[in-house]
């Protein structure tokens, strides 16, 4: 039995919403070499800032380098040009205190629900029984108490998302990177998940970079919406969403006039991009 980690702070390596959770993306460019030997610029000169504890959505047409941007922030990839700094420190290698959520559940099918959720603390070297206690607490928070021993394939899509959320948040990350996390869910489940995500986010207040195709989702959840253009991906517009928090019912908020006003503005900016990207892909296909 180790005594190095006091129970309450286990996993939370980083403090509250101070500057540690600030994300600065400056002049970020990422090029890839295609198998044919040509260079392909996924994103070009992307600059944006996420304030500590801010919920920032990135919206853009398919293939505009949204996921590439996230990969640079997490430190899984190295930028070709420019840099990302998190909490004032330049990202070089894996960024500490980051969690990822993907569109696929990214759960370990061979681990039980409990085993999946306790992965985070276990990887940080938390003693096993403390990790179990923490994981049980998180399962309770996402409403999955009693499902500890199930395997992912025995759960519904929404329940799997909840497990993934608990697994992503258990280490109390300062930054949460979400790559279309609710993209594959049906409309009703999606709304429920959005509400639960907002609730958990209000509690922990990590900075969030949230990729989505769904403009409504972006406006409902975020403080800031970034519009990206495609090939190469660059930032076109940034909108601040001044809807009051807590947002409460994510279904209701869609009918408010301010929501529709913002949604209309953002769609006007996005529409050209989507059309252009579509025409380009149609031209390639022809």
């Amino acid at each position, binding site marked *: 039995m180790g005594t190095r980690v006091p129970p309450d702070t286990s996993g939370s390596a980083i403090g509250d919403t101070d500057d540690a959770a600030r994300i600065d993306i400056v002049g970020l460019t990422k090029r890839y070499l295609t198998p044919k030997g040509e260079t392909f610029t996924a994103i070009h000169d992307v600059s944006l800032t996420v304030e500590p504890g801010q919920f920032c959505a990135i919206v853009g047409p398919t293939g505009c380098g949204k996921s590439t941007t996230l990969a640079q922030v997490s430190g899984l990839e190295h930028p070709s040009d420019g840099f990302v700094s998190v909490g004032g420190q330049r990202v070089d290698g894996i960024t500490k205190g980051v969690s990822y959520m*993907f569109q696929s559940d990214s759960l370990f099918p061979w681990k039980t629900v409990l085993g999946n959720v306790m992965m985070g603390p276990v990887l940080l070297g938390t003693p096993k029984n403390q990790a179990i206690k923490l994981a049980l607490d998180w399962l309770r928070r996402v409403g999955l108490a009693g499902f500890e021993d199930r395997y992912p394939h025995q759960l519904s899509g929404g329940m799997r998302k909840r497990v993934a959320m608990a697994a992503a948040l258990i280490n109390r990350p300062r930054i949460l990177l979400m790559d279309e996390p609710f993209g594959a869910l049906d409309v009703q489940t999606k709304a429920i998940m959005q509400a639960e995500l907002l609730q958990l986010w209000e509690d922990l207040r990590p900075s969030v970079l949230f990729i989505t195709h769904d403009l409504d989702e972006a406006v409902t959840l975020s403080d800031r919406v970034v519009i990206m253009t495609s090939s190469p991906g660059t930032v076109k517009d940034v909108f601040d969403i001044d809807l009051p928090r807590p947002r409460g019912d994510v279904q209701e908020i869609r009918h408010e006039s301010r929501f529709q006003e913002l949604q209309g503005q953002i769609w006007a900016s996005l529409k050209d991009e989507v059309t252009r990207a579509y025409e380009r892909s149609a031209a390639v296909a022809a």
Partner: protein
Amino acid sequence: MSAATVQLASQSELELQATGRRARSRRAAFVWLGRLLVVVVVIGGWQWFTSVGWVDKFFYGQPTAIWDSLVTLFTQGTAFGPIWEQIGVTVEESVLGFLLGTVVGIVFGIVLGSNRYLSDVLNPYIKVLNSIPRIVLGSIFIVAFGLGLFPKVLLAAVLVFFAVFFNAYQGVREVDQNLIANVRVLGASPLQIARHVTIPSAMTWIIASLHTAFGFAIIGALVAEILGALQGIGLIISQAQGRLDPDTVFACMVIIGVFTLGAEYLITLLEKVVLKWRPPSRSESQPI
């Protein structure tokens, strides 16, 4: 809903269940009947054709003669000692070869699967090794290491290695990259990635290869024994071949077959334990 309708509902539910069960057991009985029929036709036909003389039992043996030769093997033993000793030798060789080949195959598969550079360097050589008829190595092993246990284990292990290696390698390659990204972001070391992601994920592929791999282990041990041995089932087979005695060859096949079925059963048990997280296949529930 009143109490009466609840009772009615549960009653008809029970009836449905009973009907379903009856249909299932009827189907199972029918399947077994068919299986029995196949045995009767094949073995009976064999016996009949050879007794009538349409097929020469001198070359193709005869079920009753095979049975007699099995009885002789177990009651009077063989020229090289009791039959159990021969079975023990072959089993030991194939099991040791199986274990050795499996362990080395898994280690190589995982290392090469997760190291792009090593895999690129060694890839052509592995292809070459895989395309040569490895069974011929048996002759070399016998010349180099004599007639004892070791060359048999080695040949069995070589055959097993490739079956397991390719599956482990492929299994590692197929790991969901999102899962790896996920744990890397959480701060996992390469060793932790292997332990929590790569190995469990590749396990499906590895276990699937063990079924065929065990067959290879038996083949390796038997062939090496036929090539040169002082004891073992393979030796009995090659002696029987020299005496123009197909019945004893078939008897040996039966013995090995029984042993392989047992081993197959154990591997299936292992599969159930290790892969208990897998969803049950659809065929396990049937429409009624």
